[in-house]
Every structure is written in C-alpha cells, then in structure tokens.
C-alpha cells in the first residue's frame, strides 16, 4: 500500500515534517507530534500512514499503534467534514453538558466516536476546551460555541447542514 502512494504530496509533506524535526527532540516524544501532523494532513490515521511513520522514524509499529490508541484525540477511522467535540470538563458537565451531548446524539443519530452516513459530522467528547466561562461549550472544527442549550445545538447543526449544501 505504502509503495503505491509513496509519491503522494501528502506523504511528502509528512516526511518533510519528520525530517525537519528529527534532531530537535527525542524520537519517542516526537512521535505524538508527527501523529498529530499526519491527522492534520490526512484527517485520520489509517494503518498505512502509521506504517509509513513507523518506517520513517524507525519506531516499531506496535509502539506507534500503542500511542495512537492511547489518546482519544487520534482518529483511527475516517471522520466527517465537521468534528463536534462536546466538552465534558467539570464546568461544562455541571452546566448540563450531558444534555447537550444527548441532543447531538439524537439529532445526528450517532454515538460518541461515530460519523454520520453523509460523512458530514463526527461526534466526540472533549476533556476541557478551556472555555469554562462559556459552559456548556462545544468546539466544531476549532470554532467554539458557548452557553448552549438543546435548541441552540439543533440550530448549529442546521447551520452547518445548510452551509454544506
């Protein structure tokens, strides 16, 4: 698989990233940053990409897999166009984050970690978005939406659906 996509521009930019950071830090601590970069470029971490990273960095595959599965941040399956992370941190939780999460689940008809059939939305939980003053908050592709209730949550989804039409 790797050999067929070896010349892919995405892989080249990932390789360049690895090479430019090689001397800066210890190999195993660089791994997380490389995985982040890979996810940024490709959207998720398929085995071929992890194989590529393992080979380029001389890190055994089982270790790359271990790090990728340890952090919830990394996606092992393809994700939707919009990633909705519902903050479940203490402040948001107390302000009713569970209800918000439930609203998204019902509206999108998916569970945590799943993607809608139209590949538009992926729903995940986040630990703390650092927006406690706006609790309960969600982040959609980096944009923060605060002081939510169920109705606002529905409206946000509608907005994104309309946007992508």
């Amino acid at each position, binding site marked *: 698989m790797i050999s067929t996509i070896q010349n892919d521009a995405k892989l080249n930019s990932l390789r360049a990233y690895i090479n430019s950071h090689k001397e800066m830090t210890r190999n195993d601590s660089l791994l997380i940053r490389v995985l982040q970069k890979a996810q940024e470029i490709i959207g998720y971490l398929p085995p071929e990409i992890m194989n590529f990273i393992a080979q380029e960095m001389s890190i055994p595959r*089982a270790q790359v897999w271990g790090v990728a599965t*340890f952090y919830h941040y990394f996606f092992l399956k393809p994700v939707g166009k919009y990633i909705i992370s519902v903050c479940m941190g203490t402040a948001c939780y107390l302000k009713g984050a569970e209800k918000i999460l439930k609203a998204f689940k019902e509206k999108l008809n998916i569970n945590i970690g799943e993607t809608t059939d139209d590949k538009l939305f992926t729903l995940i939980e986040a630990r703390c978005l650092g927006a406690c003053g706006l609790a309960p908050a969600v982040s959609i592709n980096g944009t923060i939406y605060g002081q939510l209730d169920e109705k606002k949550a529905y409206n946000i989804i509608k907005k994104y659906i309309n946007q992508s039409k």
Partner: protein
Amino acid sequence: MNSQENITIFINGTKYQTQNGQSIMQAADHLGYSIPRLCYHPQLSVEGACRICIVEIEGMKEFQASCSYPIQDGMRIHTNTTELRQARRDILELILDNHPLDCHTCPKNGNCELQRLANILGIEERHFEGERKQYPIDDSSPAIIRNPNNCILCGRCVRVCSETQQIHAIGYAHRGFKTVVMPSYNQAFDKSVCINCGQCINICPTAAFTEKKQTDEVIRILNNKDNITIAQIAPSVRIAIGESFGIESGHNFQQELTAALKALGFDYVFDTQFGADMTIMEEAAELAERYFKGENLPLITSCCPSWVKTAEQFHPDLLPHLSSCRSPMAMLASLTKGYLAKKNHWDLTKVVNIAITPCTAKKFESSREELFLEKDIRCIDYALTTREISWIIKSSGIDLSRMKGQDFDNPMGISSGAASIVGTSGGVIEATLRTFCEKYLDSALPPLQYHESRTTKGIKEATIVINDKKINIAVANGLKSTHSLMDEIRRQKKHYDFVEIMACPGGCIGGGGQPYAASLNFFDQEKILQKRSQALYAIDSSINIHKSHENPAVQQLYKEFLGTPLSELANKLLHTQYSQKIPCGIIPKEVIYDINHSK
C-alpha cells in the same frame, strides 16, 4: 556512594551487611527473604506495575515497591508485617477480580504464578466481583495463542519481546481498563512480525500466551494403527523434561523418554541428533566451499526457525549469508519420508513425523512450504513442545522416571557427541568446526577461547588459528544484540567467517517450549540454564564418537544413498532457500543509534 561498597541494612529487625547498589528485592533475595512478586523479572527492566512486592521502610509513610526501591545505608525494612500481608492480599484480590474464574479449565492450571501467589498470600475468599474482559482469542499463529482475557497487564511479555529479543511484535494498546497487549493494528498474530520464539509464553505469569497445542491430534493419530508414526527427540528435550516431573534439571532422560514414547504407541523413535549430525556434515561442507573461495562470508547458521524469520523480516539483504542447510529436525524428517519410507515401501500418506522439541517456532517451521517433501506432503507433520509431550505422558498414566530405558531405533538413532551440544548456544558452531577442521583443514579443532566482542555487547567471539589459516567466529543467543551484529556484517566492519545465532536465551535449552519455571525465585533460572547446558556437554563426553563425520550411521547413509555432502540428492532433501517476508521488521531507533555510536 560507591556501588561496590558494603552497607548495613536491617530486614525484619536483623542486621545485614550487603553490597550497595541493589534494589531491596535483590538484597532480600540474596539474604533468603523471598518477597512476593508478579511483574518483576531479573532478565528485564523494572516496571513497578503490580505493587505486589511492597515493603515497609521505617520512617516512610507509604509502602514502597521493593523491586524498584534501592537500599540505603541503615535502612530498616520490614517484609512481613500484618499490614503488609493485608495490603498485598488486597492488591492481588483487585487483580483477581477482573480475572476469569476458570482455573480448572485453564491451560496454565498448576503452573500459574497468579494461582501460586493467591495461595502464598492466603486468598481464601473473594470480596469483590469486577468487570471481566471479553476479547476474542487469537489463534491465527501456528505456534502461539494470545488470550487477552487472561492478561493481568504485568508487561513481562512486552518487555521480553522488546528488550531480550528486540522484535517488538507486541505492545500495549488503548488505555486504562481497556488496555490490551496486542500486535500493531490488532492484526492477527500470524500477520505480525512475531518470530514464534515463545519467550512470551515462558515469561507470562498467567495464560495470556500459550503454545498452540497439538496434543489431542497426536493422541488420535497414535491410536490409529494404520499410521506409521515416527517420533524424534531433540537434544534439549531429554535434559529438561525431568523438570516437568519434579526432577532436578540436567538429568538425561533419553532412554526413559524413548521407552515412554514406545509405550504411547510410536512405531519408531529416532534421535534428532542424527539429523544434527547430518546438518553438521552439510554445513561443514558449505563452510568449506565458501571459506576456500572467500565468498559469501560469514556463513550464518539457520537451524533456529525464529532466527530465520527474524532474518527474513529484519535483514533480508543478508539472507544469502544464511546456511542453506535445513534444521536437524527438518533434515531427519526429510530423510524419514524421502529415504526410509521409499526404502521400506511405506505409503507416504500413512507416515506421520512427530518432532518433540523445546521450541514453539518449530510448529511454524513445520508449516513452511519451503520444507514440504512435495506438494501437499509436509516433512514434519507435528511439532510438540517439551511441555506438550510431558502432558501426554502424564495423562497417559506413565511415570517417566520409572520407565525401563530403551535405545533409539536404527538407523537414525545413532549420533555423535557433537550432535548433542547443538542444543546449547555455541554448540552448532563448535560441532561444525570439529568436522570442518578435520575434514577440510586436516587438523583437530583447538579448544575455543571465547571473549566478549569489543564492538557489540552480548556477542561472544573467538579466532581459531590452524597453520596459516584463521577462522573468525561469533556466537549470539537471545536476539538482543543480533541487529548490531548484522549491521557490522553488512558494513564489513569486522570480518567473520562463521556466525551462530540462536533466538532463545542460552540456545534451544532455554526454548519457548521448555518446562515452566517451578518457583518464583528467579535466581534459580540462570542456574537451570547452566545445568541444562552442562548436561548436554556431559552427553557429548559420554559418547565415544565426538565428531559427526565419524558417526557410522551417517557414513552409511552417504555411502548408500546421498553420495557426498552437497550432492544433488543432498541438495534436494537437506537444503532450502529463504526469502524476504512481509511485514518487514523495524529496528528501533535506539538500536540504530547504538550501532552508529559504538566505537
């Protein structure tokens, strides 16, 4: 403070002088206090994960893990207070709460460290019921079964695979309660870089890793009298099998084992050592051919199936260096089916070769198509480990130690002393050189004087000088230093003529199919390997024939059938070629760093 210095410590109120620089557990072990332990293993790095080995240190508020806490001058340690006993029991109970309650049907029943620990710590009732793990069992590998439901996450398998073997086939995946030890991408074991050495089986305290048993199939085959069943016994089995029957290691049960196999219904019991003599004959000829031409040196041994798979995955560019000789087991099996069966007009479909080996990777080797006699006819039908044959013997109501001894069957039951030492690290090279020097250099092999390699730690080297000829050899056991050694060969940093690699610690005597360690005291383990090795050298001295080319049965076989070593027929039956395998192995960066920065 100097680590060689003696310091004073107190254990349970008694004063001791002991060497500084040890952990509390090490010091206590030497002084006769065996602190309970689970994730600790002396061959591996310290993990400190299980907390079973906690002790009380006066002046400290918390209990400390004795495996990782260093001793200090004047330290007052308590290993057995009422509070400690209760705390250890609580910790173990919490581990047990997520563990299946199926001891009586577990393959590790009677050999399980967790079970033993529960007994030692006095767990008599269960206070909690925890959530159970429910994962599929992976039995895709021909040699090893992975059952994550039995795993207690002590990490010994992960460490042995990465530290001792440097294969990194398995690692931790996911986190918290959902952590599972698995190959990358949770792929099937037979698709992983696992080399089937079975060290994870030997080191696992529970039954998260076990060998793929073939005991029931073999018993069924033995009970069908139409079959012509042929057993062969590897050198390292006969000197270790006693341990399964509670007898000290190092006693040679060759004759009793032969008698037991006959009692089980085997038609023929041959000696894998005869196969070893054949391997030595062929390998010595191969060495001579390459040595005098100066081509393709060093010759690297290929008796070890785990090493062969390592080479195919990690060092495919060096495959031409590997000896084309099949392993002793494979040679003997090829000869029984390719020669004896034809000579006696046996129906090949009825002949069943069953190898008794100390090795789990032999199960994988026997399934390799390179070693098939012809399409769909395997040379080796089954490979049983020492543990499996011990179980068959026990479950058939045979008391091994009381069996009246019998000799091997002829003609493949006569062997030289050289053949017996191939089970121990350094044995294959020594045995081959005995024949090589006499046959091709007209001189006896001088005693081998090994020293540790200055460039690669963990590798033994020697130089043999005969007249104007010099032979440089290197020996490795455990794959730890092999990547570095292969890199030296690749870059021609140092000239070697002959290199021997065995994947398991100590060689086949420490194989992944050998009896489980009988006690929790790991200081015994080194001793067990020493005793097994000494026992093989004792067999070598007890046999009048010391060199493979002096074995009359070998001479007869060449005269009657094969002609000479490396003849066309010998090439067809006794040699093979290996090729690059997917997935390719990845050598960790630390190792590459060590290679680049050595010297």
